[in-house]
């Protein structure tokens, strides 16, 4: 979370009414359409959206590589249009799939070369490089030529490059793109460790990996077609789509079936879990039920009433919606569903949301899409 919300300190990122239009044929492309954003110093902020949403354009503007067509943007109080030098001294950036540098150099040499661009004295540069090589776990590759690195190794080297100048703000544009699970995790751990080392360090992450945004970010803006559709903490965003409390219960038996559960106070819906329905319970010794309640407080009454229905709880898990559910709710399509420009931006594709909440099977089907389940009772 932000290290400080001191009103006298400028925002880490202050974007007002940014609009960016690319004049390309056959018609201009509006990449950003009136974006407002305020990121506090010390925040880990995520921009989440599908390809073409405008995330990279925004990051290019903030890193002084692109001018906005309209609006203003400031980094720690410095104007991205006029105070580029100041901004470039306190920021750095790493993009996914980055192939920067020169294959003929070793990792150590390449990083030293970049250290010179940030004005590190030569000897300090070599020392700094050695420290960072150690920190990113590349000691064995230090003398290896850049051209021989794997994708994951290369990205770790890119991170070391991005940290050479001790940036106050770090822009990460799809940093784990193309990395395997362990390499992506290593990169995330590295960023978190770097950020935690000094209060006030700020990260702006663009990604279309929802789990990554959920895991790393203090706040997230969901972007599509150049607009911010929603902004908040991951929990706040998820609450937008979860209007009920959803639990999965595993019982030893259940007299009267799920219909008996539906009659209990506070129960909005109850349904057998997908596996139980498919198998007709014939080969199961237990019963799994998805339970939708008006709120968490209703759970106590349900647990108390289960005794009278002849059931004992073997396990209970709370299901949470994912950020993808939030995205689908907002734009009417999933991240993987690419659309042409202008399509789907108004939430017109509600059919993709799946069955109506009134459908008895609602919990079963949505459960398949949920990314996380927090185990409450085992």
């Amino acid at each position, binding site marked *: 979370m932000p290290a400080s919300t001191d009103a006298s300190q400028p925002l880490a990122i202050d974007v007002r009414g940014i609009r*960016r239009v690319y004049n390309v044929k056959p018609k201009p492309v509006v990449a950003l359409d009136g974006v407002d954003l305020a990121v506090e110093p010390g925040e880990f902020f995520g921009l989440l959206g599908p390809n073409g949403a405008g995330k990279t354009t925004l990051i*290019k503007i903030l*890193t002084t590589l692109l001018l906005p067509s309209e609006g203003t943007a400031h980094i720690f109080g410095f104007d991205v249009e006029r105070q580029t030098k100041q901004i470039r001294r306190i920021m750095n950036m790493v993009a996914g799939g980055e192939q920067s*540098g020169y294959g003929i150099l070793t990792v150590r040499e390449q990083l030293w070369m970049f250290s*010179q661009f940030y004005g590190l004295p030569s000897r300090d540069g070599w020392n700094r490089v050695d420290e960072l090589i150690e920190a990113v776990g590349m000691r064995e590759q230090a003398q290896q030529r850049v051209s021989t690195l794997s994708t994951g190794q290369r990205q770790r080297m890119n991170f070391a490059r991005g940290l050479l100048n*001790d940036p106050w703000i770090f822009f990460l544009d799809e940093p784990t793109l193309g990395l395997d699970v362990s390499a992506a995790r290593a990169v995330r751990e590295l960023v978190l460790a770097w950020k935690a080392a000094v209060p006030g360090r700020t990260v702006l992450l663009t990604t279309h990996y929802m789990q990554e945004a959920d895991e790393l970010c203090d706040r997230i803006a969901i972007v599509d077609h150049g607009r911010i559709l929603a902004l908040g903490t991951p929990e706040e965003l998820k609450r937008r789509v979860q209007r009920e409390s959803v639990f999965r219960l595993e019982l030893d038996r259940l007299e009267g079936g799920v219909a008996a559960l539906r009659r209990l106070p506070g129960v909005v819906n109850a349904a057998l879990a997908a596996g139980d329905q498919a198998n007709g319970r014939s080969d199961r010794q237990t019963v799994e039920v998805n339970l939708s309640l008006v709120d968490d407080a209703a759970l106590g009454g349900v647990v108390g009433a289960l005794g009278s229905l002849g059931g004992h709880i073997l396990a209970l898990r709370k299901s949470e919606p994912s950020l993808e559910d939030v995205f689908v709710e907002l734009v009417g399509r999933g991240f993987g569903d690419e659309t042409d420009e202008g399509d789907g931006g108004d939430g017109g594709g509600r059919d993709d949301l799946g069955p109506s909440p009134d459908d008895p099977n609602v919990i079963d089907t949505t459960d398949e899409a949920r990314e996380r389940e927090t185990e409450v009772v085992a």
Partner: protein
Amino acid sequence: MSTTTRNAFVYRPTASPQAAANWTPRQVLMTNLRTVIGRAYPRVRGLARERSWVFFEILLPFLATSAFVYVYRALGAPPQYIGFVVLGGAMTAFWLNVIWMMAQQLWWEKSQGNLELYFAAPMHIMAVLFGMAFGGFVMSSTRAAAVLIIATTLYGVSFSIDQWALLLAVFFLTLGALYGLGMMLASLFLMWGREAWHLTQLLIEPVYFVSGLNFPVGRLGVLGSVAISLLPLAVGLDAMRQLAFADAAYPAGTPSPLVEAGILCVMVAVFVGLSRWTLAVLERRARQEGRLSVRWQ
């Protein structure tokens, strides 16, 4: 991945982003100087790592030079002509370096993704170009020296130098003007994008010809005078030939070495100034139009 290394994530603690962004003029200067060294580094290291240049950039130019040596010998040309062509062969290394590794470099850096990082770093982009030029100078000097020494030894070229200081000054001014031209072309080629390759091809042979790499440029008459007023290689080579073979009869039709040194001074100022200006225009335009930073463009 280890995250426990001492101070790995804290290098130069600063009180605030504002303090970190506030650099002294000395910091600015030193950063730009270090950038020159840093950017020159890959080229200097490349000398030791990519040995193929010995074949491509010493042996092949040497063969081309040798062909002219044998032609001049067969025709019974004055002996200084052998020296003229050897000197021209040595200077070819610099021209090739300028056209292939300066003019096209920013375009290549863009396609590699380096250019964005250069623009996003705090140094002046001119420092990167100076670094490329310095690295290229070190690379090409080795090659030029190799061609000069081998050919001089093999073909018995004897130099007659009265004005060493002026010769050295002309040599470095020629390189200054050549690399200044390369820096300017780098900006223009970046703007022209994919056409850069064709432009490179277009420039090589005509420049070889009008620069008089293998014969005194004065022989070209008016065309030679035009070349002397526009091309650093033409004017520099002509002045160096006059100074390196002072006792030989030099074909008339070109200015004195001192005047040519003056022309080179103007060229250095104009080319470096123009490269700075074009780069500034280009960066502004790139930021406005998104050509620099948008991958799909």
